């Protein structure tokens, strides 16, 4: 008799731990990879690197390596019960995409030199990041569901929530960046998005993604105050480290960037207060509050997307990015507040629905 089996979804005790560590490594790897990717975009803007062997690529691919190790651990621990759990399968599929993107990216660099943000290997890479981070998140939830009962099954430790949600948020942001930033024109290909379509996608997708990820983080903690703020702070820290700090001319704007935490903490307070009636109000309100932060949270890169639509002939050089952005803050952003609030509410509702136990596991 196997004393360690707890029904069909259970793992042996040792495998149980390995499964959790694997999930954490899968998500941490994507966090590294996505952070490296974000730094890589900034590095291209500032230094125009010409070689594949740039420091951000090193971070990116060491993140991929970490995810591979995590995925192998998920696979080996799942084998102890004779079948691979679907979150582990998702993580494995994502890792397979990541691993296949590496050599193709190297070959693409070798054939076409400096590549743009959107290229076939980059798209495979970012798709792999989304799948793997989703695999990491659901694996952690799966691990949790194996040993606990009732509402506790769906709750994760705050640190695990940040490790699971942040990579997914960054990877989804990477997908949106790929289809909105005008960085994909090279000597050989022009994959730059249409400026109007890019603005429409950015104004729609970013508020949705922010609200969905942060409300998802709150839901996973049982709407405990602090978890949404912690996840938001981790995103802000990643943005500051990878997009602002490498550029000397943007250092003075860090206090402005940190202001983005005010609405996140406010939304967290709204979401965690349990006595609102009707019950849906905090979800709509928190989503709307989070949605309006998109123009700040995606600073400075978002400047390029909107500038391309407003004045295609004006170049956003690193040293004038803040100047152009603050001009947009007063002219463009006021027009975006209402739609971004609405899309934030939609994102929060979607996260709330997906966050229910029935829909995920």
């Amino acid at each position, binding site marked *: 008799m196997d004393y360690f089996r707890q029904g069909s979804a259970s793992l042996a005790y040792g495998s149980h731990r390995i499964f959790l560590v694997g999930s954490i490594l899968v998500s941490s790897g994507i966090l590294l990879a996505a952070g490296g990717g974000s730094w890589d975009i900034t590095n291209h803007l*500032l*230094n*125009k690197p*010409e070689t594949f062997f740039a420091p951000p690529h090193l971070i990116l691919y060491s993140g991929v390596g970490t995810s591979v190790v995590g995925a192998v651990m998920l696979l080996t621990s799942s084998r102890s019960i004779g079948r691979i759990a679907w979150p582990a399968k998702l993580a494995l599929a994502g890792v397979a995409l990541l691993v296949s993107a590496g050599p193709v990216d190297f070959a693409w660099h070798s054939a076409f030199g400096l590549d743009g943000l959107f290229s076939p290997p980059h798209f495979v890479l970012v798709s792999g990041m989304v799948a793997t981070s989703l695999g990491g998140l659901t694996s952690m939830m799966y691990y949790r569901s194996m040993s606990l009962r009732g509402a506790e099954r769906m709750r994760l430790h705050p640190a695990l929530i940040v490790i699971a949600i942040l990579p997914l948020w960054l990877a989804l942001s990477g997908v949106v960046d790929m289809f909105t930033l005008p960085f994909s024109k090279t000597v050989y290909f022009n994959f730059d998005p249409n400026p109007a379509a890019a603005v429409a996608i950015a104004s729609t997708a970013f508020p949705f993604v922010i609200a969905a990820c942060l409300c998802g983080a709150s839901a996973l903690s049982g709407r405990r105050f602090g978890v949404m703020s912690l996840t938001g702070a981790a995103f802000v820290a990643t943005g500051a480290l990878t997009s602002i700090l490498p550029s*000397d*001319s943007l250092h*003075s*704007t860090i*206090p*402005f960037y940190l*202001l983005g935490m*005010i*609405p996140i*903490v*406010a939304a967290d*307070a*709204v979401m965690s*207060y349990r*006595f*609102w009636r009707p019950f849906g109000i905090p979800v709509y309100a928190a989503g709307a*509050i989070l949605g309006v932060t998109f123009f*700040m949270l995606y600073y400075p890169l978002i400047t390029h997307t909107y500038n391309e639509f407003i004045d*295609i*002939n004006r*170049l956003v*050089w*690193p*040293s*004038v990015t*803040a*100047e152009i952005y*603050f*001009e947009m*803050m*007063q002219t463009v*952003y*006021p027009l975006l507040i209402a739609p971004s609030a609405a899309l934030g509410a939609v994102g929060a509702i979607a996260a709330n629905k997906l966050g229910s136990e029935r829909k995920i596991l």
Partner: protein
Amino acid sequence: MQRAILLAGGVAAALAIFFILSLYVIPQSFQQDAMPSMPEALVSKVTLSSRQITLGEPVSISVTGTNAGDEADMQIVSIGFPNLANGSDIEVVRHDFRQSPLLVERGDPVSGNYSGTASVLAQYPSIEVFSRPWEQGSTYTIDLQVRPEAEGDFVVYVKSVAFPHTWDGAHYPREGLVDYQQEFVESYSIEVTKS
């Protein structure tokens, strides 16, 4: 109920502070305090191996660019050859720029009027080499070898442009001959005689 009202009030106040700071106070103060970056592009040295050569013989050209102003996000040194039909007779011997030199062929889209965005088609081959960024006071040099295709005067145009182009000092030279890009150039000529 009272807690809910307090919470709603606190959230409203926090959002009001957020919007006032991010929509008005910080953008206004940033725009008032911001000093535009003023890079100053210079071509500090041009050396030709000879002023007179025989047809078939190569001429060596060395061009040194300097940024005497604020750090430039990018500064270009351009060396144009109006007498060449194509770039096959140009060879980059060495350079210490941050990025690799680009060969611009006749018909390639290039920027004009110091705008930095492609707006005109190249009328003759040139070598464009740049550093991104180009630090304050830094100097970069490129050495070329060119083989003129015909006898007579072989003309070489040299210029440098720094970005962002915020003032007249961001380009060199500041006056004189204007090329097809509507930008000032310094002209050098080499007499090519029959062998």
